[in-house]
């Protein structure tokens, strides 16, 4: 039974597209047949994050408007034979597609795949509504900042109003050192505020930047903490009971003592 999962956030720039690309790849690495759908019509980005930008011929709007068949628009990721991308149109806007179109599209994709991951645009308007129209489940991405959490709260309310069940939370770009110093909200803080289930915490990781530069994703990089966190989320989606990654900042006792004195602890980066 295929699952359609929409990744959304409210606020822009919190890592929806990166999350979609990493979860899609991680699920494909687990042997699932996956299609990642870029629902951000007019602001196509999932293709460059996945490194598939040079191979686009047709896009989602071409499919909806009948200029091509669905299979012609799907781009196969050569590195992972089970992974496909349905790119967004770059020259159109969100009004080119209706929620009914998206439901029909998702239902067609269900027949071919185990997972349909829909990358939602930011905001709470038409594009977001299109992105969740065909969803069975919703994942909300936020960062531990007041603006992102406030917007995530709004999205939780909307997802429930659209009867998409209880969304689950991905807390992105956590910096353990800052959390330890009390300078960043912890996962406990954010979960308490939003009162939804947490499916994963992703640390802030330079590998996200360097791998995206190359059109690769962090789950492909051994030793990336963010990549590991995304792989764990994919396994949780598959029903495995994976304990939450304990994000460490490798503080020594001396560091902790200096921290308690209000002195800046030495940083050790793994």
């Amino acid at each position, binding site marked *: 039974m295929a699952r359609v999962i929409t990744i959304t956030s409210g606020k822009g720039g919190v890592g929806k597209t990166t999350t979609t690309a990493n979860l899609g790849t991680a699920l494909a690495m687990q042997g699932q047949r996956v299609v990642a759908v870029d629902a951000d019509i007019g602001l196509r980005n999932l293709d460059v994050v996945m490194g598939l930008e040079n191979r686009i011929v047709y896009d989602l709007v071409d499919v909806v408007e009948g200029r091509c068949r669905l299979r012609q628009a799907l781009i196969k990721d050569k590195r992972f034979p089970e992974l496909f991308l349905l790119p967004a149109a770059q020259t159109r806007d969100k009004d080119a597609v209706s929620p009914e179109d998206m439901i029909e599209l998702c239902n067609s994709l269900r027949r071919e795949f185990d997972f349909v991951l829909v990358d939602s645009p930011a905001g709470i308007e038409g594009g977001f509504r299109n992105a969740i129209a065909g969803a069975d489940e919703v994942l909300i991405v936020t960062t531990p*900042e*007041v603006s992102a*959490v*406030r917007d995530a*709260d*709004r999205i939780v*309310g909307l997802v429930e109003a659209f009867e998409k069940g209880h969304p689950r939370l991905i807390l992105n770009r956590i910096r353990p050192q800052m*959390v330890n*110093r*009390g*300078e*960043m*909200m*912890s996962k406990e*803080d954010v979960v308490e*505020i939003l009162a939804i289930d947490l499916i994963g915490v992703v640390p802030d990781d330079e590998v996200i930047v360097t791998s995206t530069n190359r059109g690769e994703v962090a789950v492909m990089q051994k030793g990336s903490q963010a990549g590991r966190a995304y792989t764990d989320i994919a396994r949780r989606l598959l029903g495995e009971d994976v304990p939450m990654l304990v994000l460490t900042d490798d503080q020594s006792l001396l560091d902790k003592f200096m*921290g*308690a*004195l*209000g002195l800046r602890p030495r940083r050790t980066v793994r």
Partner: protein
Amino acid sequence: MGFLDNLLGRKRETSSTIAKERLLTVLVHDRVKLTPDDMEAMRAEIIAVISKYVDIADPEAIDVSLLRGEESDHLKADIPVRRTRN
């Protein structure tokens, strides 16, 4: 006294606790859809009603606020009443 508090394990007002408190306040207002103006108008009406029955000690000290609860949010009014014998 930050370092002493830390050594003794006392909680210090860090930027993350400020962030959390600010968020809890803004979210409860977002959810109940009560603007600061509405809140002020309601506060004035509550004071008017209460003062018909009891002697309010200090109108400035009245605190009307929205609080987050588990299942529902709460409107809390803390109204100091003048204490008089006979």
